């Protein structure tokens, strides 16, 4: 029996290796994703374009404009002369923020009278607006401090902040675990459900089912190569994270791989479940895209924090396996915790796997309709 099984696994391997497009998904996708997340996708601001409406037009206001640009966060696009021009830059999307300096700016600056610098932000992007207004406020405050040489106040609560686990605030620390979870899911769940649906659609499933191999072995033979390849992928992402983006593995590597294995089993059972429910490839594709990909990206806390979502979505996020897996990965990889700290997440993942396997068991049919 063992020999036949391995022959079957080998057949499946050939299927994968021979198709360029499958290889594209298998290896091109994780590579593209990790590079995009690593280099291109950030929420930080460099060189945000702003307009300045300078009523004062004197030395002090010039210096303020200089000071704003010196931070590296802003590039002044246009210096406007009247209020009417504000709208044009915003509509075209060339100005995210307009800073208006009042005409008595310098007098008031030296006299120490309270005064207002107005900031008008393009609120159509709320994220941008709040962050940029914060930056401008900081820069204006530091400008004033410098100019008026204010001595520090002794009566102050000092704050010593330590950024734990990620002192440099590198984005990669957050996305490497998320990417691993996503890749494992795509390969294990989507690819397996697609290949099984394909065999059904082409009619080759029937041939396999009438062969002397027990159906369970057929399924096992189909998923083994994917499990193996997804494992290689997970290691690949970890290596790229480590060597290119300096993301460490603080905890035990053995435990990490064990957890990956657990998640692979969960994802595989999901994939088989989807394939039992769908008759065509189009079906399987839609189900795995909508049922797996979207929730795993959006509701798992990978890109957006779960805690800020409405309650219903938080509950929905709790039934997404990726939520727990990402938590486990962050724990073991970055916080360096042992098994005793992640027992809850591991338990939930195990429970999910058992339930999914039972469901698959019940839905799996040896006969084709």
């Amino acid at each position: 029996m063992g020999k036949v099984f391995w022959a079957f696994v080998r057949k499946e391997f050939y299927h994968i290796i021979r198709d360029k497009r499958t290889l594209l998904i298998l290896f091109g996708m994780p590579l593209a994703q990790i590079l995009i997340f690593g280099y291109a996708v950030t929420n930080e601001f460099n060189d945000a374009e702003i307009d300045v409406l300078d009523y004062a037009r004197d030395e002090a206001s010039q210096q303020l404009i200089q000071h704003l640009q010196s931070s590296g966060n802003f590039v002044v696009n246009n210096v406007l002369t009247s209020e009417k021009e504000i709208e044009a830059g915003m509509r075209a999307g060339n100005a995210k923020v307009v800073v208006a300096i009042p005409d008595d700016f310098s007098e008031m600056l030296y006299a120490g009278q309270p005064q207002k610098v107005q900031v008008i932000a393009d609120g159509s992007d709320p994220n941008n607006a709040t962050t940029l207004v914060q930056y401008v406020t900081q820069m204006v405050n530091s400008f004033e401090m410098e100019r008026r040489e204010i001595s520090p106040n002794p009566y102050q609560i000092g704050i010593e902040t330590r950024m734990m686990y990620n002192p440099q605030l590198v984005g990669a620390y957050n996305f490497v675990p998320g990417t691993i979870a996503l890749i494992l899911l795509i390969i294990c769940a989507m690819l397996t459900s697609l290949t099984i649906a394909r065999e059904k659609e082409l009619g080759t499933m029937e041939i396999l089912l009438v062969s002397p191999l027990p159906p369970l072995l057929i399924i096992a033979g189909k998923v083994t190569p994917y499990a193996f390849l997804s494992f290689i992928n997970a290691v690949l992402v970890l290596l790229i994270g480590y060597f290119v983006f300096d993301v460490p593995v603080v905890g035990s590597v053995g435990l990490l791989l064990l957890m990956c294995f657990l998640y692979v089993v969960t994802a595989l059972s999901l994939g088989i479940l989807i394939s039992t429910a769908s008759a065509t490839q189009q079906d399987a594709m839609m189900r795995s895209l909508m049922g797996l990909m979207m929730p795993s990206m959006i509701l798992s806390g990978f890109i957006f924090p779960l805690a800020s979502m409405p309650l219903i979505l938080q509950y929905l996020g709790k039934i997404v396996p990726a939520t727990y897996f990402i938590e486990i990965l962050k724990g073991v990889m970055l916080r360096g915790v042992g098994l005793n700290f992640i027992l809850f997440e591991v338990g939930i993942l195990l429970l999910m796997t058992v339930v999914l396997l039972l469901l698959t068991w019940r839905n799996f049919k040896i006969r084709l309709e």
Partner: protein
Amino acid sequence: MKILGYLIQKEFIQIIRNKALLPMMTILPIVQLIVLSNAASNEVKDIKIVLVDKDQSEISRALTNKIVANDRFTLVSAPFDNQEAFNLMQKNQADIVLEIPIDFEKAYYRGETPKVQMLVNAINGQQATVGSGYLNSIIASLNAEIIQREPMMISTVQNQIASVVVSSNSWYNPELKYPHFMAPGILAELTALLTIVLSAMNVVREREIGTIEQINVTPIKKWQFIVGKLVPFLCVGLILLTVGLIASKLIFDIPMRGSIALIFGYAIINLICVLGLGLLISNFANTQQQAIFVAFFFVMIFILMCGLFTPIDSMPKWAQYLTIPNPLAHFISVSRKVLLKGSGFVDIRWEFIYTFLLAIVFNTLAVWSYKKQE
């Protein structure tokens, strides 16, 4: 012309007979709109904090009260032991650990500027910065209150309070409502996505089933075949867009400041562009699976780089240039500009030009690469 009419008719009949397509055009966009618009927010609303108050003084209690009263913060526990607090953070039950050292209050009144310790879970760097920023401002406001209360301090600090005030207001979306920003973007993404997947699967399906042979032996010209595929899916895309616009108006009350005609005019060009890409992918695949994989690969990259979730402006310059051949990025930018800011044609001319060029390139390639003979 008559041939083209029949081709389009045939395609429409196929679409209408497909039971799976109708819910995808109506329910799917609405569900996605609701879920994504609510989920995709980078706000930091719930920060779990652990306080280690070793001082137990008036100041430390005032600080505790201030933090508890702020609804952004949830006090998880207040142990006396650093190790216990750190364990909570290891278990991910705490985002911030704030430690107030012994004799803090005494040192404060002596003017020694004592320090509280703040440990921040910084795995998500952006969240960590925002969260610790909130706590910083709470502490600063407490400090200001104490100074106000002590006449002795006021006199020494008086002329040191900053006097330049930055007042800010936000145009177009004064309450900074997140769904107003997300909904138009998601709508654009969804429309482009569905049409690209449908068109990529379509030709290849005919090839796999074998019906394409029957078309190949007829006198139908190449461009007629491609246009016959384009028009029906264009209609599907426009229906989806209409349903989505109505849904986001009803559910989120998003503003529609610009001209709707401009949106639809642009959408037609953009849809022709993505349909051309879909057909191109379809032409180069022999099986549906292959088409799905290639389409999936591109779609994934398009979505991550289209500016829907993270702003294009904050990408490095080379990555910003890479978004030029991404039709999704232009669509999202146009729908946001026109709907939220009421931009006119002049403001979005570049998006128009790029999309137009891309549409020509993709569709020419699609016609060129469709071969009647194997």
